[in-house]
């Protein structure tokens, strides 16, 4: 009898993956330019501030950054899973529908106009990126929705057109901006994780985890949706509703991830693929496992990014692209060969 996914099997696998994430996060939190000892960290904060530097670095700097990387990785991987499902396109990634260029436009607007106010402890760059990302997605959705019935193709086309147009605007603004403004924008466009305040971390964590949970609740309908509109309706799925919910939450968690980390590429494309190759395409499992593995991957990538050229730091997007490409090729070669041996 073929193996069938049960809630119990899924729970066991998710717990194993979470344990792996926990281990990787702890290990990565100990790695850095400043050596810290495990013993001193466990000794606690001490009586007065500044007494135990190791503890303060660990809790105040390393841990938030590692958690942030895990959150961004999870959000991007889950969003990738969702977009690949609703667009029925294995090449889709979280940025395919214009989120990247929309957020980028927001950021460069913020940098050039030099706004300084902030919202809920978010920096102006984060706030503008978030607004730009969601605004663009909304625009793409509206264009796709009103131009015809075959929504999937229209959405993709609208995304491509908006991406191209906004990229042109970004180029224009970059070319008229001052050089120090351009530097911070380019770092952001490459995807850059930095230390953030606890408030930002808290809000992002709640939003991203809630978004992933909502997506998990519709994941079994996404399985059916990958068979196409007619098939899904025949199996009792309200396709318009499910697509809207999936698209909305995927855009929301991507916008949050983008606003705190810039455009980290590759995670949303290769993690869902890798997990699908190993665990199969059932979205009830693919979504949570991709989220966790995405977190593991980005935590590791970010640790490399901040240590490899220490004391300087690389944008994490550079690492994900350099490491992700070959890693994915190896995975692909391994599993396609395994299939051909069986035949």
């Amino acid at each position, binding site marked *: *009898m*073929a*193996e*069938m*996914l*049960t*809630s119990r099997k899924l729970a066991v696998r998710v717990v194993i993956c979470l344990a792996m994430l926990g281990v990787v996060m702890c290990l990565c939190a100990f790695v850095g330019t400043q050596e810290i000892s495990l013993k001193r960290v466990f000794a606690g904060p001490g009586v007065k501030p500044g007494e135990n530097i190791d503890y303060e670095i660990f809790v105040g700097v390393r841990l938030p950054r590692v958690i942030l990387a895990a959150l961004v990785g999870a959000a991007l991987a889950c969003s990738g899973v969702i977009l690949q499902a609703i667009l*029925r*396109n*294995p090449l889709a990634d979280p940025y395919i529908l214009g989120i990247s260029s929309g957020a980028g436009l927001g950021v460069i607007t913020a940098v050039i106009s030099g706004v300084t106010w902030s919202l809920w402890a978010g920096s102006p760059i984060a706030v503008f990126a978030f607004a730009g990302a969601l605004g663009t997605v909304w625009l793409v959705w509206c264009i796709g929705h009103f131009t015809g019935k075959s929504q999937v193709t229209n959405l993709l086309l609208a995304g491509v057109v908006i991406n191209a147009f906004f990229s042109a605007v970004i180029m224009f603004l970059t070319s008229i901006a001052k050089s120090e403004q351009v530097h911070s924008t380019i770092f952001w466009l490459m995807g850059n994780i930095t230390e953030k305040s606890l408030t930002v971390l808290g809000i992002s964590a709640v939003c991203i985890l809630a978004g992933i949970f909502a997506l*998990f*609740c519709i*994941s*079994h*309908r996404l*399985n*059916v949706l*990958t*068979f196409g509109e*007619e*098939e899904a*309706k*025949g*199996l*009792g*799925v*309200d396709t318009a509703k499910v697509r809207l919910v999936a698209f909305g939450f995927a855009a929301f968690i991507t916008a949050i991830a983008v606003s705190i980390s810039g455009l980290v590429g590759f995670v949303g494309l290769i993690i869902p693929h890798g997990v*699908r190759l190993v665990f*199969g*395409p*059932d979205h*009830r499992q693919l979504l949570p496992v991709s989220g966790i593995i995405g977190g593991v991957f980005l935590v590791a990538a970010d640790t490399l990014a901040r240590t490899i050229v220490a004391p300087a730091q690389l944008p994490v997007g550079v690492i994900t692209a350099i490491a992700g490409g070959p890693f994915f090729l190896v995975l692909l070669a391994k599993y396609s060969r395994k299939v051909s041996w069986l*035949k």
Partner: protein
Amino acid sequence: MSGIIEVENLSFGYNLQEIFLKDVSFEVMQGTFLAIAGPNGAGKTTLLNLLCRLLTPKAGSIKIDAAPVESYTVKELARKIAVVRQEFVPVFDFTVAQVVSMARTPYLGTFGFETRADKNHINEALEMTDTARFSSRPLAELSGGERQRVFIARALAQNTPILLLDEPTSFLDLKHQVGIYDLLKTMQLEKSKTIVAVTHDINLAAQYADVTLLLGADGSHWYGRAEDVFSPEQIERVFGVGGFTGRIGREKFFIPLGKFAKDNRQIGRKLNNS
């Protein structure tokens, strides 16, 4: 007793085209096998899509189980009607068991996990369609005939009183065509399912179906027992092709004969006219 599917004065046409389904009325009793035949463009698939509410009629009404089709939610309708379309390879590598499991979607709770009862339905469908032996293989690795059986297994696991099929045997060889029709007939007889199949193969339709709906490209239609509807004159008029009609025992068959058929004495009349 009224039929499980009641269609009254149904008309449909896409916006700019003229109406091609005109005033179609018929009633299908529970547990019967209806074949819908007709030339390309007569609206066979359209009629099927109207029955499962993918399209909305321009006029007339459709009742499923005595209630108007539009009164059902998508989920409720999926518990009444299962649809099998032409087989295809899905985008992602789902296995046979996973595809058949999806049939239970309209019955699942919030998190979408199958209960023991769901699993029984799935296993029964896999056994009945003889797909259990390759249930852990991905669909892409199967032959067209095997894949079509998987989609039929899925429809069976959906546990609906009505089964709609859109040309289920189009690309299959003779053995698999007969295999699929045998399977459908078994489901009709053992599970008393109502089966509505769109088909190009009027010979298989005449063999297996209890009632037949013949749609003409001009909006005309005939409904009745297969042996009455498929008369040689009717076929020639509707399909625009002459041929040889014969009978072996109780089975009636029709062989189309074109201009260059080796034995064209059977259609001499046609050749002289043209």
